[in-house]
Structure formats: C-alpha cells, structure tokens
C-alpha cells in the first residue's frame, strides 16, 4: 500500500497527521476541560451543576479518545518518540494519568449518589482532574517547543523542576485559560438561565486575558526560544499560523463582547488550534527537540516506523478519521437543544 510514497514522505505525512490529531484533541477537549475548571466556581446549586454536567456529558468521552488516538498514533507511527516521551516525562505523565482518571470518574459519578459530601468531593475531583490535564499538557507542549534536555546518545538529563521554566509556566497557564474560555462559551451556548449568563460574562473577560497571554506566549516563542524561527525563515508561509492565532483570538474578544457567543466559541477554538500548530511547525523535523544541542534531538525520520506500518496506518486513518468526524458531528446535532435548569437527565 502507498508504494508510490517513499519512507521519508510517509514520515512527513504522519508528522502532519500527528499535528492534526493533537490539534483536534486540544480544541475538542478544551470545552469539556473548561466546564470542569469552572464548575466549582460558577455553579451555585445542584441544578446548575447538572446543567454543566449535561452540557459536556454526551461528548467528553468521545473527545478524550482523540488524546488516546494521539498516544496510540505516536506509538504506531513513531515508537521511539512514544517510548522517549513517556520515559523522559515519567512523573508528569503519571500526573496526567491521575488527572484523566479523576476527571472521567467525577463526571460520570457526580450525581450517582445523593450524599452532598460525595458530590462535593467529585465536583472538586472534576476540577482538579481538568486542571491537571490542561496544565500538564500546556507545560509539556511548551517544553516540546523549547526542547527537552536530551544529551548525547539520547540520554535525558532534565529534572522535574527544570520543566517549569517561565516559558513553560506561561504555556501551562495559557492552556488552562484557553480551556476556561472555551468552557465558559460552551456553557453559554448550551444552557439557559443564570448559569449561561454567568458563563457569558466570564467569557467576555477571559477572551481578553487569553488574547494578551497568547500574544506574550507567541512573542516569547519567536524571540526567546532558540531555533523557533528556523522553519519560519525557511518557509515564511508558516507565519500565517501565528498571525491566524492572533486574529482569531481578537475575533473571540470581539464576538464575545457583541454577545455573538457561537462565533466567539469557534474563534477561541481556532485560536487554540493555531497557537498549538505554530509551536508544532517550529519543531519539524524533530518530534523531541533537544535544548542541549539540536543534533541530539529525535527527528521523525529516525523515529518513524517501517514503510509497511506507516502505510497500513495511513490507510486506516484516511478511511476512519472522516467517518469518526462525521458521527461525532452528528452526535453534536443530536443534542443541540439548550439545557434548562429544570431539565433532569438520569445520568
């Protein structure tokens, strides 16, 4: 299969697909994560909590699978990167894992028991899980863009503390706030009543903060991160990505202000997507960039699977990803009505 493509071409296609899958994950999960980040602060009673729960309930599971696909896709297409990424970042990955478990269980079990104490614990579990996921991924991706401390022979010399540079922290906070904004706009789109109004007000402020932070993050990336501009200089068309990130972040502020919530929601998602892709575009051909010396980084050609594996996976992805997107979009149309405080779902 795909014999007309060379191994290098397949590796490049897979890098592109890898960037797409991560991008899709970040935007689709951003509103489920954001809802979790907001729930303890904006829901005043059980009814409002249930509105938020119902707004993401049908979707969060399907959204999270994009993350599993990103991990599985890395394993299949770039096993070396999969192995190194998880081994180097052992403890952050465990934190991410705990976050994923806490989030999933909390959403599903939130109202399975009438005990208000248990509900409270689960609500905070939902929050803590969502925070861990978005923060760890934000910090991790900033480190990917900055480069990990990989020394000669692929030996990792970084420490846990070393991962929390100012740049990585801004990345972490940006990912959290992008998710918060996404969640606030989503709650406003999907619900009616007091909670919708509160979320809408919050989104007006947070879109602005996101814009400022995104500008800082991108400026830091382009001016303060070594090697970030190499690909951009070689291929100036790539500048479109950060430009679009800023434009869509501005649009999110603009639409939120005008109470055009759905366009604001879409703009915020796109801003998130373009921020992530701006960073990913900078690391090519590396998947794990080295901050010690570029020659120690792990590039896609070295990490790629065999021609056969890459082409089998490409065939499967080309057939199934469109089908998945179609039925996931269909699921969104299935639950398009706004959720009222009086609605009661047996969850």
């Amino acid at each position, binding site marked *: 299969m795909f014999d007309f493509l060379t191994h290098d071409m397949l590796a490049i296609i897979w890098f592109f697909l890898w960037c797409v899958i991560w991008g899709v994950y970040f935007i689709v999960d951003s509103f489920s994560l954001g809802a979790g980040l907001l729930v303890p602060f904006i829901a005043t009673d059980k009814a409002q909590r249930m509105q938020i729960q119902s707004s993401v309930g049908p979707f969060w599971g399907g959204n999270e699978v994009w993350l599993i696909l990103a991990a599985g896709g890395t*394993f299949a*297409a770039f096993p070396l990167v*999969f*192995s190194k990424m998880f*081994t180097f970042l*052992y403890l952050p990955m465990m934190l991410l894992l705990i976050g994923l478990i806490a989030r999933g*269980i909390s959403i599903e079990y939130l109202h399975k028991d009438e005990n208000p104490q248990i509900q409270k614990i689960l609500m905070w579990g939902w929050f803590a899980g969502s925070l861990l996921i978005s923060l760890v991924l934000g910090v991790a991706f900033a480190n990917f863009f900055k480069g990990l401390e990989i020394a000669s022979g692929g030996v990792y010399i970084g420490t846990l503390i070393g991962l929390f540079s100012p740049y990585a922290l801004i990345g972490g906070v940006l990912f959290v706030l992008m998710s918060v904004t996404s969640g606030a706009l989503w709650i406003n789109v999907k619900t009616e009543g007091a909670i919708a109004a509160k979320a809408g007000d919050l989104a007006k402020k947070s879109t602005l903060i996101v814009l400022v932070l995104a500008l800082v993050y991108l400026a830091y990336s382009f001016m303060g991160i070594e090697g970030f501009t190499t690909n951009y200089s070689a291929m100036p068309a790539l500048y479109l990505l950060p430009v679009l990130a800023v434009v869509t972040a501005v649009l999110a502020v603009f639409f939120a202000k005008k109470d055009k919530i759905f366009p604001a929601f879409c703009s915020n998602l796109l801003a998130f997507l373009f921020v992530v892709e701006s960073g990913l575009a900078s690391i090519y051909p590396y998947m794990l960039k080295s901050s010690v010396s570029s020659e120690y980084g792990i590039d896609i050609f070295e990490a790629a699977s065999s021609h*056969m594996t890459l082409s089998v996976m490409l065939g499967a992805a080309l057939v199934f990803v469109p089908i*998945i997107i179609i*039925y996931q979009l269909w699921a969104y149309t299935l639950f398009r009505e706004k959720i009222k405080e009086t609605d009661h779902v047996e969850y």
Partner: protein
Amino acid sequence: MIELLLLSRLQFAITAAFHFIFVPLTLGLALLVAVMETMYYRNKDETWRKMADFWGNIFKINFAIGLVSGITLTFQLGTNWGAYAEFMGDVFGPPLAMEALFAFFLEGTFLGAWIFLGHNRQKLKAFSMWMVALGTNISSLWIITANGFMQHPVGYEMVADGSKVVMTDFIALITNGYVWYMLIHTLLAAYLLTSFVIMGICAYHFLKGNNNEVFKKSFSIAVIIALATAVMLPVLGHGYAQYVAALQPTKGAAMDAIWETGSSVPMYLIQVPDSSTGSNSIQLLGIPGLASFLYTGSFSGTITGLNQLPQGELPPVEMIFWSFRLMTILGSLFIIVALLGLYLQKSGKLYTSKKYLKLLIWSIPLPYITITAGWIVAEVGRQPWMVYGLLKTANGVSSVPTSDVLLSISLISTFYMVLLIFEVYLIKKTVVNATGVE
C-alpha cells in the same frame, strides 16, 4: 535493576488486573443491554425497558471505571516499558491505534448518546447501544491481536542489528491463530461472568421476595448464557491448551508440571510441583499416557519437559500450575451451578430454593477469580519472555529512577483502591435500590 524490574512488573500486574475487573462485565452487559433496548423498541413491553434501565445503570458505573483504567495501560507501555515500546512499536503500535480508531471512538461517542437520549427516541437509543457493544467487543479484538503477537510472533522480521522487530505482513498479524483462540476464550469467559453477575443479582432479589418480571426474565436469559458458555469454555479451552502447548512448550509443560521430556507421559490426579528441585514433591494416581494424549492427541506423544530449558528460562511453575488448576476446577463448577439453575427454574422451585439462591450470590466473585487465574496462566506462562522467544521481560523495562516507579505505584494503587470501594458501593446501591423495577 532487579528492583526496578520487579516494581515495574508489579505495577503493570496491578493495573492490568484492576482494569480487567471491569472489562468482562462491560463486554457482556453492553450486548445484553443492546438486546433489551432493541426488544423494547420492537414490542414496547415495559419489562424490557426496565431491564435495559436497571442493567444499563450497572453497565454505566462499570464502564466508566473500565474506560479510565484502560488508559493507564497504554501510558505504562511508554513510561515503564519504554525499551519494549521501542523494540515492538512497529508491530504493537498499529493494533493499539486501530483500537482507538475502530473501537474507542464508537464507544466514547455512542455511550454519550445512549445515556442522554430519552426513551422517546428509542430507535436511536437502541442503535447507540449496539454501537457501544460493537465498540467494546471490537476493542478486545485489537488488544488481543497485540497480545497475541507477544504470545506467538508472526508476520514480522527482526532488523539486522536485532534492536527491533518490523511488521512484514499485517494480514498475518490479524489472522494469527493464537489471537482467535484467545479472543473466543476471553469473550466467552466475559459472557459467562456477566451471566453469573446477573444471576447473582437476581438471586438477591428473589431472596428478598422481589419476584418481578424484570428479574425473572433477566434470570432466564442469564442461565441459558451461563450454561452455554460454561460448556463451551472447557471444550474450546482444550483446543486452546493443545495449541498453546505446541507453540509455547514451556507454558504447556508448566500448566501440568511436566519436568522431564518423554513420551507416553501420564497425568497425575494429585500433584504438587516444586521448582526448587525441578520435580514434583508429590505425584499420585497417574493415568498412563493421558498428558501425552491431551497435549499431542496421541497416548504415546512426546512432551518437552521443563528441565530441558536453559538456566534462567524457567517460568514461575507453581503459580502457573495452581492457577491452571483453579481455572479448570471453577470452570467445571460453573456447569453444575448453571445446570442446577436451569433445572430449578424449569421445575418452578427456583424462587424458594434459598440455599441455591445464596449459592448464586456467593458465586459472583468466582468468575472474576477464574478469569484472573486464566490471565495468570497466559501472561505469567510466557515468562521470562515478554515477547515469546524474541524479547525478555528484563530487557523491556524503561530506565527510569526506581523512586519514580515506587512513587507512581503507591499513588496508583491507593487511587485504585478508593475507586474500587466507591464503585462497589455504587453498584451495591444500584442493585439494592433497584429504582424503577417494581
């Protein structure tokens, strides 16, 4: 290094065993709830709706924890078994990614739809549950395809420097005989477990005097599934064991503690293996040539004994031997329990047979134990190999600080313990209250 290896193995064993507490019930209930939803859609009988709701609630609680605990396993292949991931990625990665593409998206997307769709959209609701059932069952196909390669590598080639394997034949990978034996065995075991859980829960309600249609009907379905699967498992299991013995002589020999290579090997009814001496400390009541017959199909067939193995390649024989015994003994017991249930039901004595109903409740954990024992035979049986004949377990482990593994193992175990207690509490509550079932 030994410590790191031991801790990594322990962590994987704990997380895999924990995950597999939830998987079999999910596999079985998904199909049954889909059938119930469909029956309700077709004949609008309220009993079917109540059944779908009641078992569906138990399914939901169970599914959530199965889903999140599954991610742990994928993560650990990178964090704790990085060297394995590098060695095997080319072959092991694709089934894992396929599992996400073909199965997880179906499960994730349609589970949300099924939960949130009201009974006024019955056709869609039933359809969604079928998609979930399809997803969960397809998922097991892919994960067993990956595991099947570790048991019996096919369709691969070792690269010149021996550092990794690459796939040469994808079709061979998915038509691997081992996969199909293991898949059918695993699925049947899952359905058996589901039927015993259902019978146990029904028994609890019969004892309380809740002889309503929901539990009566559920019991009638479950007892048939229980009997069918309990009979099929040993029949197919025998074929599976013979196949395994031919492919992995070590595992085969360990299952029956056969130490010396020979022909016309007898099978002993009472036997206690002792790996420190490389023999059985007790062996009584031998039936001549039976072991040879069971393994090779001929009473004079030759079986390779464990003492033939090079130094250091002996798997933990006692563990495999006793797990295999436990699995087969409990497996036989299931046939008797199911037959008795069918008889009591047909003769109308079921609801008053207090002893039998109590037996059913106490039987709920047994399939779980049996399945775990079965996995121990399969997974411990391939030791010291991680990928049979290709990669030793000791060479698959990540080089991470032991303290990190110690930290993560304590964190995850504690977390899992809390989850397990909470899940049991929720299921118990759902069962006892049986809301909506009158």
